């Protein structure tokens, strides 16, 4: 068990900078998820922590020791790969014990560790099988078992669930969380799936173009995104962004979306945005769940408006509605009984208490 620190870590491939100066502190026992679109440098970062890639600049510390030039086998880490990387000619037990056997652990110790890990992962019956006799989920368990028996300082997961089907992915996600609750090993987990990131992580690190966009708990990222990228990446369906500007009407601050559509800001929001320039090009960021059907007794800050729906998507517990504002498609979530139909008019309401205002040019959340 140990903490992991990255200090201004850079990875260059010839001309291209894949990772551009990352600072990250991961506490002991913490479960941190690196998330971002493909090519954002998250896997490279993980592989640098593992020692599979050299770092071009900066420092990586595990348990307080700088490990820049320490080979992977001496870093005391274990890694689970996307395609499992099980040794095909070895049985499950041999796969799991390979690392211990290389280090010449006593046979009894190896056996007890393998048995314990197999029991934890519910693969005791498969212990004598070869990888090709296992299903995808079982292989993934063996790969995790191989990491657990080593009892390392840090677990590294490189998109471990991407090869599984949707149902199994949800199941294994829970399994990974359970394992972490039991062994409490510091974990760095890479995924491109924001749902996986949100559900597993103590803290999520959102990366884009080789840089960290934001670090925070899943709730912080969802409710207080720092940039447009984070706001749009976290959450599904994604946050809506509608071009807007601020204007003063009769001493009150309004946000104007179109010539005909403007909303008065609730007092708390008005105070927060008062100092902003009235000529700046801004974006109103609003999550779909804050665009819902209008209710008879409007709560403060919830502003009704009329629109014509383009498309509706009934999801069962809710219906997603899509409409267009000045050429921008907006998504809302309404009650399935609200009578939303393709092409029909509907009175919706927007909850401005949960709005975000972004600078259209810089993408910063204001």
């Amino acid at each position: 068990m140990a903490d992991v620190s990255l200090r201004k870590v850079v990875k260059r491939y010839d001309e291209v900078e894949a990772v551009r100066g990352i600072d990250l502190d991961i506490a002991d026992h913490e479960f941190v998820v690196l998330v971002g679109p493909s090519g954002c440098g998250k896997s490279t970062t993980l592989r640098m922590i593992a020692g599979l890639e050299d770092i071009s600049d900066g420092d990586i510390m595990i348990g307080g020791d700088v490990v820049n030039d320490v080979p992977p086998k001496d870093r005391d880490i274990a890694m689970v790969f996307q395609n499992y990387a099980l040794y095909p000619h070895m049985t499950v037990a041999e796969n799991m014990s390979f690392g211990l056997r290389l280090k010449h652990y006593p046979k009894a110790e190896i056996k007890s560790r393998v048995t314990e890990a197999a029991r934890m992962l519910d693969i005791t019956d498969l212990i004598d099988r070869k990888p090709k006799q296992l299903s995808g989920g079982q292989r993934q368990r063996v790969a995790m078992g191989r990491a657990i028996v080593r009892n390392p300082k840090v677990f590294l997961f490189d998109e471990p669930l991407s090869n599984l089907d949707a149902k199994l992915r949800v199941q294994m996600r829970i399994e990974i969380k359970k394992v972490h609750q039991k062994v409490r090993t510091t974990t760095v987990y890479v995924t491109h799936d924001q749902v996986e990131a949100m559900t597993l992580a103590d803290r999520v690190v959102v990366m884009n173009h080789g840089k960290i966009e934001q670090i925070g708990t899943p709730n912080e990222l969802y409710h207080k995104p720092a940039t447009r990228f984070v706001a749009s990446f976290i959450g599904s369906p994604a946050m809506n962004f509608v071009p807007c500007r601020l204007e003063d009407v009769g001493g009150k601050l309004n946000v104007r979306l179109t010539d005909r559509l403007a909303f008065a800001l609730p007092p708390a929001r008005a105070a927060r945005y008062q100092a902003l320039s009235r000529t700046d090009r801004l974006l109103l960021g609003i999550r779909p769940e804050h665009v819902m059907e209008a209710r008879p007794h409007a709560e403060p800050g919830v502003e009704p408006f009329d629109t014509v729906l383009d498309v509706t998507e009934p999801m069962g517990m809710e219906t997603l509605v899509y409409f267009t504002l000045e050429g921008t498609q907006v998504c809302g979530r309404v009650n399935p009984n609200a009578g939303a139909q393709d092409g029909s008019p509907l009175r919706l309401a927007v909850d401005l208490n949960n709005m975000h205002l972004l600078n259209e040019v810089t993408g910063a959340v204001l």
Partner: protein
Amino acid sequence: MSTVTIDKSGPTRKVKYGSMSRDRTWALRWSYFFLVLFAIFSLTPPLYMLITSLKSSAEISAATNPWWVYHPTLSNYIELLTSNQFLRFFWNSAWVSIIVVTITMLISVPAAFALARMKFWGSATLATGVFLTYLIPDSLLFIPLFKMFAVFGDWTGVQLVNRWYVLLFIYPTLTVPFCTWIMIGYFASIPKELDEAAIIDGASWFQTLTRIFIPVALPGLIAATIFAFTVSWAQFLYPLVFTTSTDQLVLPVGIITTLIKGDVFNWGQIMTGALLGAAPPLIIYAFLMDYYIAGLTAGATKG
């Protein structure tokens, strides 16, 4: 109790063979046609050798049907197998082939591993270079090679020319490049994550090679072994050039030099010797083919 009949048949329709199955039938027919054709083409010479080996010299030169044995005899076999000379050739060939195969594997497997996995400066160029050396024909190489060994003998006094073991230095120039090339291909097909997992598990490069790569690439290893053995066993030009004394000859050259006396061809024994010479590779093929199971990597990654 009333019975309910359920019509499970659905709408009836005449079963038609789709174009897929028709294509397949034709593809099969053509495959069989060509397979039989090539089988005849390649099996006729050995059959002819077998027939001739069972004839006496008198019957071979008689104007009878060459495809039929009227007075079968095993005298050719008995004479060859009791001749010390022939057994000596056999022995020389066996030693040369076994040692060359061993040398080849000891060099080409680590070389292929290094070229396929340990990305070092110039490794890609080197890998291509290894293959290019294989493309130079032995008929171009034997004169400079002979010169090299002769000069080496003059300088050091160590006489290698006209010793059977000179072939141990020469055959690897043929086998090592090709086997290295085969093994590079096999090693390259092993997923990168497998050696990364091994490295993280604490394996050195050498342990990764011996405990992961060699077992996983076993089919490739066997293919390379078969190749190296066949090349060493059947090589003709080099032993013809480098060995001349009868007791130093290997089988193919031995048969030709001792059984052809001037313009007298002892056809019966030549055919018998060639047939007996073809036996060891055949046996090795048959034995190793059982282990030559491709797809050993199945299950390593998402299958």
